[in-house]
């Protein structure tokens, strides 16, 4: 009985204009398994599961559910067939509450036909609690942090009571504690016979929970392996067609002078915004040529700190001192920050990083326009050349610089944000979750790039929720807890345990 797959996809193909996103792909999902889908950015993972979840209705190939051939006219059809999906990009309605989002399109009704708000809230809260999220279901989703929104998405998929659950990078915005909780839930679901398709770029997660791994490359299946039998290198080899050289622990140059000096930075917002942790006593320094990591739990205030340094944070009274080079720096706004050589890659690339409908080229050159114009006129050949170089440098996979960014895969979109800021040749680069959703090969490229940038004298301050990333990449790790610096760990003493302990606020006293 377990042999009969819940879902069988055969010969799936999908083209977007000239791009063959998927080509003749076969995939099965059986009850009680976690079937991991791996592949580089743009390999076609999301496209494939969009076919399965009814988002893409025109495609080649067939889908069988329980042995019966089906054809979905829309996402609702797939849901009815028992297929629930957590999409890669957070697709929630900001103006509705958590509960309303979770039950959107299938609201429980009272006998009068009105929405049974209490039942909705109760169930929403129960689902969230299993994920370890203590959120008031009445809160508007727009006021949630990205990580919390991700939990809401997961909660919604769970509440669908599906037999097949598709998760497209569900942990991209989650911190370790939530990830653990999610895995516990996945284990439970697996035990209950749910078939799970799991997409992630985090190899460690795959090794932890996958029963079967299918690797996609350039829209085709490169191979299906048993993760317990295959080594990480084998899988990576399948993914990128070569082995990825050691990312970590390269020899580094000696850092130079202190470039960024932050002392006692605190922001008292004029009107507090729920869910934001403004800096409340941050001390840190970054030297030129140095990569400094920012660690902390979800909501520790890393994002807010970076935003404040870039002048893009909330308004309010500011205390403390910030110095860049040897001149005091009062972050006045993104423009002023860029003029002082400070660049910022925000964590929410779709909301804050990109003009999705605009072309790749237009996005890349937006910040640096003033250096690409004469008398206010854009120098097209120069722009074209610059964009081409930048895309090559970052190995962006895009059919052409003139296609809309929205059609790029998630990881490649991230690289575009990156490219835009690097064009400004900043002295200080602020990065917020720069490798979220980026594939392992691209990640390696980004790490190399960061090293090169640091070696050329750039100072880099990087917030990340992936501890291994911080540990391998950074010269020092600054740990935040509730908006204040609680520990500064040099590379030698930075371990996973030490960071986590500090992040949980365990040694707040010590560090005072």
């Amino acid at each position, binding site marked *: 009985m377990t042999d009969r797959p819940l879902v069988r996809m055969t010969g799936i193909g999908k083209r977007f204009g000239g791009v063959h996103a998927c080509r003749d792909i076969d995939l099965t999902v059986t009850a009680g398994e976690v079937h991991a889908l791996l592949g580089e950015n743009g390999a076609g993972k999301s496209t494939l599961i969009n076919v399965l979840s009814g988002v893409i209705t025109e495609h080649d190939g067939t889908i069988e559910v329980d042995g019966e051939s089906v054809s979905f006219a829309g996402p609702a059809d797939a849901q009815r067939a028992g297929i629930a999906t957590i999409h890669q990009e957070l697709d929630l309605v900001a103006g509705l509450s958590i509960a309303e989002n979770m039950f*959107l399109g299938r609201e429980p009704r009272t006998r009068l036909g009105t929405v049974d708000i209490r039942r909705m*809230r109760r169930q929403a809260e129960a689902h969230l609690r299993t994920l370890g999220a203590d959120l008031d279901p009445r809160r508007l989703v727009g006021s949630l942090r990205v990580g919390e929104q991700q939990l809401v998405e997961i909660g919604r998929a769970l509440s669908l009571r599906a037999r097949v659950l598709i998760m497209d990078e569900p942990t991209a915005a989650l911190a370790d504690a939530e990830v653990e909780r999610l895995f516990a839930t996945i284990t439970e679901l697996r035990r209950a016979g749910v078939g799970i398709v799991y997409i992630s770029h985090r190899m460690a997660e795959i090794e932890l929970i996958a029963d079967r791994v299918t690797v996609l490359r350039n829209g085709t299946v490169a191979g299906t392996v048993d993760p317990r039998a295959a080594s990480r290198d084998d899988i990576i080899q399948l993914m990128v067609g070569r082995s990825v050289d050691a990312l970590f622990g390269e020899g580094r140059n000696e850092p130079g002078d202190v470039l960024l000096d932050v002392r006692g930075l605190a922001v008292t917002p004029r009107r507090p915004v729920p869910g934001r942790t403004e800096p409340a006593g941050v001390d840190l320094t970054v030297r030129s040529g140095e990569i400094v990591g920012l660690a902390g739990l979800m909501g520790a205030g890393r994002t807010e700190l970076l935003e404040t340094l870039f002048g893009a944070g909330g308004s309010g009274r500011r205390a403390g001192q910030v110095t860049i080079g040897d001149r005091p720096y009062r972050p006045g706004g993104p423009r002023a920050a860029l003029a002082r050589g400070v660049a910022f890659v925000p964590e929410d690339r779709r909301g804050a990083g990109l003009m999705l409908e605009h072309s790749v080229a237009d996005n890349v050159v937006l910040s640096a326009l003033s250096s690409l114009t004469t008398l206010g006129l854009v120098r097209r050949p120069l722009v074209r050349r610059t964009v081409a170089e930048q895309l090559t440098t970052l190995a962006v996979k895009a059919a052409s610089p003139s296609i809309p960014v929205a059609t790029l895969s998630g990881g490649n979109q991230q690289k575009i944000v990156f490219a835009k800021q690097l064009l400004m040749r900043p002295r200080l680069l602020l990065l917020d979750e720069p490798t979220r959703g980026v594939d392992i090969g691209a990640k390696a490229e980004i790490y190399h790039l960061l090293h090169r940038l640091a070696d050329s004298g750039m100072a880099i301050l990087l917030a990340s929720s992936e501890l291994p990333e911080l540990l391998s990449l950074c010269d020092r790790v600054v740990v935040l807890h509730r908006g204040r610096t609680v520990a500064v760990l040099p590379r030698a003493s930075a371990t996973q345990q030490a960071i986590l302990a500090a992040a949980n606020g365990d040694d707040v006293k010590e560090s005072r």
Partner: protein
Amino acid sequence: MNPPNPTTVAASPPETPPRRRAIRLPKDRHAIVDNFFRFQSLFGLVAVFLIAIAVSPSRNGENVFLSSGNLANIVRAVSEIGIIAVGMTFVILIGGIDLSVGAVLGLAAVGSATLMVDSGLGIVPTVLIVLFIGTAFGATQGAIVARLGIQSFIVTLAGLQAARGIARMWSGGLGIPIAYGEGPQEAPEAFSLLSGSINGVLPVPALIFLAIGVGALLVLRSTAFARHVYAIGGNEKAARLSGVPVRRVRVTVFAISGLLAALAGIIHAGQLNQGSPNDGAGYELDAIAAVVIGGTSLAGGSGSMGGTIAGALLLGILNNILALNNIDANVQLVVKGLVIVAAAALQRLRPRIA
């Protein structure tokens, strides 16, 4: 364990015991703040109301603005715009706009008069036919928006012209007066109730407006339909992915707007004892102003019906107090412009979301 229905197991939010009393929700700051700002659309209204009292002329020691007759007049005067604005709120919530409402009002007014006076129909069939025409007109516009993906601004701008043209053709270009009585070419007496009032105090159109407003407020609070409306306006893709019938909701929303515009047209005919094809010109802008002053975002996805009602009343009070003080018509235009901006600015005090 062999559960009869595997689906249920997988889904049931792992083990919530069927407690009798709902979980006590933590009295959470966020929710309170959110709710507080839901009522914020009232700020502007209250402010304008207080100012109106303060600057009102008085007559025989009585505050003219506060006299019950005057207050009733205000509500009566805004009732048509208010009813239209209620429908417009739905449209704007899904991120659309309906410029055709004023013309549909004119069409409905002509229809009411023609059907009763020329065709000799009774009140009920007349009202039903006219409401049907308005609904169908709105639904057609909605279908064009939803099917062809054309921006509603342009569809309803075209609809405006079309409705106006049809109304003029139907009426022969002239207003059709409504006389009451039993004879031919006369409308049933009962129709004139629309220009009367309850107990001589509450004008019937005001009553209808308030009833529609409260009804819509409840609909927007309590129905799944309303959630779908907000969802489409807030994030259409998310709505579609969640299985919301986006097209159907769109068509329904424009149909509602057409329906309410037609209702306003019937009231218009009843109040003025005439169906004139040119009436209602520019009402769309007033209605939109009421909606926006009420705090609904033209980008869609956020706003409230209470705000719209407050916005309509605010505009009514403004018109009234300017008139009571005999402000020159041209100065009035300027002052009104300033107050509208100020009222909108007040709405902006609400905290912003990301």
